[in-house]
């Protein structure tokens, strides 16, 4: 599908996009990004379909995090185009905020708001961005906390929770906005081994429920079990894309083979 086709089809309203092409909700077209002189993303062309789980793997500094942070404009790309939900990411603040409403993001360091209780963390954006009533947003928050298994901690502060619990709150906080797409930026890298499973379980459950997910992770087991597609990146470029079966059993590129031989 070409760029002009997408631009020709304006979405009638946010939240009810046209089913365009082959259901691409994220499209990156020749995306380039530099930090100063450092070329961080080199000509990235990828797309994510609706209800698809894409896992991005690669060595440190390969641009995985930069790529998904570009997808909700936490980082600016300097060349190329990114379309999310048929809206192009540009400097237009209105577009950015519209897109961020539809994308939830979970960070490596959780980034919960330490001065708010768990339930306030989950309700804050609902109330001021989604403009839901206090009662409604609290109900949604409690339901979501139950879904991620920590409803009994709702009135504690993040500092009183373990890392795994905090990350599940962060997932609930992102889900409370009822996003179409969830971005996970190494969600288990800062966790103790015992706690990784509880977060991954929540993510698997989320994937099974049909959420579109882009996950940067080092958890190969998760990638193998849940991913629809695996993207391998190195030195700012996409090296190899494929299904988990293809990727783990029959990698083509030498760099991929080297990477897999080192981590498996």
């Amino acid at each position, binding site marked *: 599908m070409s760029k002009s086709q997408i631009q020709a089809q304006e979405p009638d309203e946010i939240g009810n996009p046209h089913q365009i092409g082959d259901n691409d909700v994220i499209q990156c077209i020749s995306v380039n990004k530099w930090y100063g002189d450092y070329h961080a993303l080199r000509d990235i062309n990828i797309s994510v379909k609706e209800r698809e789980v894409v896992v991005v793997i690669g060595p440190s500094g390969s641009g995985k995090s930069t790529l998904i942070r570009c997808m909700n404009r*936490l980082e600016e790309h300097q060349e190329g185009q990114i379309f999310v939900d048929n809206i192009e990411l540009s400097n237009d603040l209105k577009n950015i905020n519209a897109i961020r409403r539809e994308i939830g993001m979970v960070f490596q360091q959780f980034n919960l*708001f330490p001065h708010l209780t768990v339930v306030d963390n989950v309700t*804050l954006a609902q109330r*001021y*961005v989604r403009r839901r009533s206090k009662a409604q947003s609290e109900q949604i928050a409690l339901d979501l906390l139950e879904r991620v298994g920590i409803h009994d901690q709702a009135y504690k*502060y993040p*500092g009183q929770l373990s890392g795994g619990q905090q990350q599940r709150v962060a997932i609930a906080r992102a889900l409370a906005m009822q996003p179409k797409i969830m971005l996970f930026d190494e969600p288990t890298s800062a966790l103790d081994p015992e706690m990784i499973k509880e977060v991954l379980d929540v993510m698997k459950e989320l994937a099974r429920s049909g959420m579109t997910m882009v996950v940067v992770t080092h958890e190969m087991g998760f990638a193998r079990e849940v991913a629809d597609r695996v993207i391998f990146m190195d030195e700012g470029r996409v090296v190899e894309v494929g299904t988990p079966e293809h990727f783990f059993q029959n990698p083509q590129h030498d760099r991929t083979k080297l990477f897999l031989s080192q981590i498996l």
Partner: protein
Amino acid sequence: MDKGLQPTNGDVYVASAEPPEARRPPIAETGAIRWARENLFKTRYDVLLTVTVATLVGLFLYSFLDWVIFKAQWEVAFLNLRTHSLGLSFPREQIWRVDMVVLIVIFLSLFSVAVWGSMNAFLRRSVLIVLAAMYIVPILAGFVPKTAINVWVQEGFVRVMNFTADADQTIGFAVIPQTDENAFAVSDLAAGYYENNNRQAGTSFDTFNERSANVVAFGTVDPSEYDLNFRIVVVGRNGNILETSEFTGGSTDEFTFEWTAPRSGWYATYVEFDEEAPGVGSAWLRLENIEVFRSTSKGRADVAERYGEIPEASAIAEFCTNCVTTTTRTSLRFEGRRTLGEFVSLQMAPAMLETRGLFTQMVIVGGVGYLLGLAMLSLSFGAPDTIRGAERTVTSGGGFLILLYFGVQFSLFFNPGAVALNQISFLIFGTLVVIALSYAGLQFIKGDKRDVSRGLVILWLISIPVIWTMLTGFAAIGGEPNTRFPIISSQNYGGMLLTLLLSAVSIVLSFPLGVLLALGRQSDLPVVSLTCTLFIEFVRGVPLITLLFFGRFILPFFGFGLGDVDLIVRTMVMLTLFTAAYMAEVVRGGLQIIPKGQIEAAQALGLNGLWTTIFIKLPQALRAVIPAIMGQSVSLFKDTSLVFIIGLFEMLGTMNQVLSDAQTGYTIFTREGYLYVGVAYFLFAYLMADISRRVERTGAGSIRRNDI
């Protein structure tokens, strides 16, 4: 159950299925012993340091307390409490307005403590102990033997002593000739107090009498030449002579004389020199079994009620033609060492009688506010156990009030007339206010603590104009000139009132201004950030005194009617601007420590810049810099003492005025005066620091913070 090892095979060890029972650590590992061992006596250098410091502090405290209790004269503080609180020229008949403001603030503060924080048990006990002392100490003082009053008698220099006596009270007079040169520095006359009826108080609202210690040599008189010839005269309040003693006849023997009062009332005594041979020398006239006249304003009222109106000094001068009436207090320090009983009866009891009325009202009103806050909080949650807790609190509080009432009555039994009737009326008034406020407050409650909290904020906001109106007054009500509530000119403000007014207004206003300046300095718009930066750097670059002078002298030249703005208001503006600049830098520091991830998380949720600032950045930044903000506030509170330089007299300035006024004779009491001011400053500063610590512990501060 076996607690030992499970049977094992070979080298394998398996712990018993039941973990060993938890037990308490040995006594040497807990409590004070452990604390002392770990903190005071860990190494031999530690021991050396502890012993040295403890010795030095002990020595200092010993000599300090020794001076405070046995030597210092605190009249300069407690006889001038109104002056220190309100300044030299605050109209006396309007003082009740300030009292009301104090009570409103106390009520709201304790209400807030109940809703937002909790009362520290130490604080609660201290208040109760002080309150109990205020009623018990004056009663105890009644059991201390009456202090003899020593009057200096020198040829051609006679003082009139007014005194009160009950019916059949026997008063002893003793003339102690001063024949020993060394005896001039009479250190054993521990309480050489006398009445000086002639003091013209420098204040427009209090012309109380003075008594002063007066025991030091009056120059050198050759003891061998002693030949003082006088007699003692006792007169009634209208000047009729009731009793006359023999002439002392120039004898160097001690001369005594007794007189019994026929009925309760006012009397006066003076000495009359032999006109033919007055003689040379000096002597002490010691009056025994005389009640030392409580010369404070409240004491005056009590005395007047019991013995009749207090005679004017001039009235006595009329019938005592030989008398020299001194117009200034003799400025001599008490050089002796008094007993603990004398400290209680002469120093503590009068001070407590002076302050306990207002203090009791403050405790009652504050207590009611605290209980009301607790009750509202419990009602707003509605859980059965919290309601039971509220009931318990309210009943115990009610019991406390009843006990207090009987305490007041009991103390009235011992000190008739000592407690003014207005306390009772204040109680009734306070209760009415509480009922009204609780009714208003209950309207806000819909089942959430936040509603109580919001109602409280609204109450505080309402209180600001009320307090302002109470303090300033207004010119006319409905066209008629206002006499009950007249305008008090700002020139009449002074003392602690001015200090607190300047600091409170400046702190409250500089906080939001400082936050705005900090945000402005970080703004993306160069015009805004440059303006804020210039302002902050300019204000931080000049001394506060320069700004105060600017407000006092230069601002009026700008026109726009700025010269007509009240000096106090101009000073408040300058203090606010000064503090806001520093607050801005403090807040900027707080904004800088917020992790980038917090802002990214807010952005990822779709919060825009304004919401991110309000809900994410500011709460965290301000919480992080609470200690610095409070430090700035305390600093401002102390800096208000600089306003004396532009002609405003706050707490320290007023004390300087009192101490430097030769008329009042307080010039030699600088030590006591400045110590009193120092303690007052410390108490307020400590209170502020305590509040900041409490605020730090609220909300997310109530838990140990992890690195998130």
